[in-house]
């Protein structure tokens, strides 16, 4: 496992160097003042002080609109994924870890999703350890942590003056060796500083009881809490669309005169139409069943199928719910 370091002032140079191979995205402020993953141009002004991006980086792998097929004169044709090497710098560990969950769905080894596979293969993820978790964060309760490198190819840790870079995968090793000339071997002091900083961040995160959620939810399927908790749910898709692991999608055709495309778009289990059948029958007819599905899918079904909750504790759904629903409260309410 290669460990390198570079002074923070040379970060722009490093990202500029990565650009020689393709596209580089790094955190920068947008017009509204929010930090977002932005394509790095010649003059990068990378920001390292941020909690997390408004949108999860899942769209780099599972775009909100993905053309699945083109139709020409009524004939279906495949579309390819543009093979443009891409580096995402500054992804938070929670969002990087979410890629493992998405991998389990889209690359199930049975029928791999070629579009996800293509985008995943072309992208190298450099996670940046999180030094300023928000009060809505609970990554440490769902198996992750502010310095967790799983899901990323390289884990970066911002230190006082330097940036520590630790390869997590062969792809990450390759990226670091590509930039070897710009990097120095990590000093023990840097490694120690990184450890301390990560520990300090960990200590800021309040734990949430999710350890035995699958078991608790199994018992709580018929609980009254679903009815009461879902009363205030508006049935919008904010939580799902911002969630780094939510991956449900719709497929629709956009065709005029035999020409057009079949496109995959994000969808959401909170929508009444999600399961509505042509006959008018809806297996999940009210917000109660739909809200239960969302929680069950994340904390029970995913655990049963993939051995992990499909929640990375990023807190986006908590911060952005228009009526301030909090799934941590929900997990408490389902009982022991």
């Amino acid at each position: 496992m290669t460990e390198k370091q570079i002074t923070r002032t040379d970060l722009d140079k490093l990202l500029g160097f990565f650009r020689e191979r393709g596209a580089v995205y790094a955190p920068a402020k947008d017009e509204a003042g929010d930090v977002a993953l932005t394509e790095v141009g010649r003059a990068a002004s990378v920001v390292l002080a941020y909690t997390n991006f408004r949108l999860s980086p899942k769209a780099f792998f599972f775009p909100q609109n993905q053309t699945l097929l083109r139709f020409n004169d009524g004939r279906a044709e495949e579309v390819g994924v543009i093979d443009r090497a891409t580096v995402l710098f500054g992804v938070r560990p929670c969002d990087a870890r979410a890629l493992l969950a998405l991998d389990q769905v889209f690359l199930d080894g049975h029928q791999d999703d070629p579009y996800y596979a293509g985008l995943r293969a072309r992208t190298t993820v450099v996670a940046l350890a999180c030094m300023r978790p928000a009060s809505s964060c609970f990554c440490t309760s769902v198996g992750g942590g502010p310095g967790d490198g799983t899901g990323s190819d390289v884990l970066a840790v911002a230190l006082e003056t330097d940036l520590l870079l630790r390869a997590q995968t062969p792809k990450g090793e390759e990226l670091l060796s590509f930039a070897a000339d710009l990097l120095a071997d990590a000093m023990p002091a840097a490694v120690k500083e990184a450890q301390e900083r990560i520990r300090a961040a960990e200590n800021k995160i309040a734990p949430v009881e999710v350890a035995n959620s699958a078991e608790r939810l199994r018992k709580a399927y018929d609980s009254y809490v679903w009815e009461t908790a879902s009363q205030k749910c508006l049935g919008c898709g904010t939580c799902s669309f911002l969630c780094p692991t939510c991956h449900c999608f719709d497929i629709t055709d956009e065709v005029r005169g035999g020409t057009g495309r079949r496109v995959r778009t994000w969808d959401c289990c909170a929508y009444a139409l999600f399961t509505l059948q042509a006959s008018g029958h809806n297996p999940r007819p009210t917000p109660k069943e739909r809200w239960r599905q969302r929680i069950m899918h994340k904390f029970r079904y995913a655990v049963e199928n993939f051995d992990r909750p499909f929640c990375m504790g990023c807190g986006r759904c908590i911060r952005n719910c228009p009526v301030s629903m909090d799934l941590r409260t929900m997990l408490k309410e389902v009982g022991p």
Partner: protein
Amino acid sequence: MARNPYLPYSARIDEVVVENEARDIKTFRLVFEDPSSAAEFRYLPGQFAELSLPGVGEAPFGIASSPTEADYLLFTIKRMGLFTAELHSLEAGTDIGVRGPMGKPFPWDQMAGKNLLIVGGGFAFTTLRAAIKYILDPANRTQFGSVLVIYGARVPGELMYKEALAEWQARDDIDVHLTVDKADKSWTQHEGVVTTVLQGLKPSPENTLALVCGPPIMIRFALLSLGSLGFADDAIVLSLEMRMKCGIGKCGRCNIGSKYVCKDGPVFTYQELRALPAEY
């Protein structure tokens, strides 16, 4: 490289047969444009496929033909929503896409050596037709014990596959009972719901598997009847319908509990279903 799972095989509608008096159920016979597709498309009764029309979309349908009918695929489809309305307007000769086969078939391994009870209602009889065809194929028939079929519809005009039914009733290696909720003057067979016939015939649960497909209300009563006849939950095989999009366990639409109807089903034993939330 593996085939893109979103890319349908090109096929052509070869023939359209109206199955019922109301004319809202039709059987579409599909022929692959490229014979090699037919070779790739290996399936067993109980599986389904997504039919695809450019600009309209896709929808999943149980395959009504048996792989023993080598040259074509059959889909029997009721006009219901957006896709099926469009499909019903199509004539023989139209191009259509087929994506699949998808899902798990009936448990053929388990069914070998057993007596089979096949209970169907209404237009859900499609994959059961496929199963019967498959069972009756000379190469397969000896693998199974007795075969008892009970098939019901509201009125005689709603029974599908009339020719095949007549042919099966003429054979002595299968016992086919037809029933209608409401008989007309020409009807000479059972009158009453499927469960009444089932209760009357009292098939033995001994070494027997039951395949049950029908409308929810029929399923509910058939399960009660089978239970009272002594059929164990794991000896009853059912097939679910859910709204689907991808058909390959990714889009999340057909998720029920920890199962995806598209890849873990659509065929489940009653025992498996009981372990799932009743969200179907």
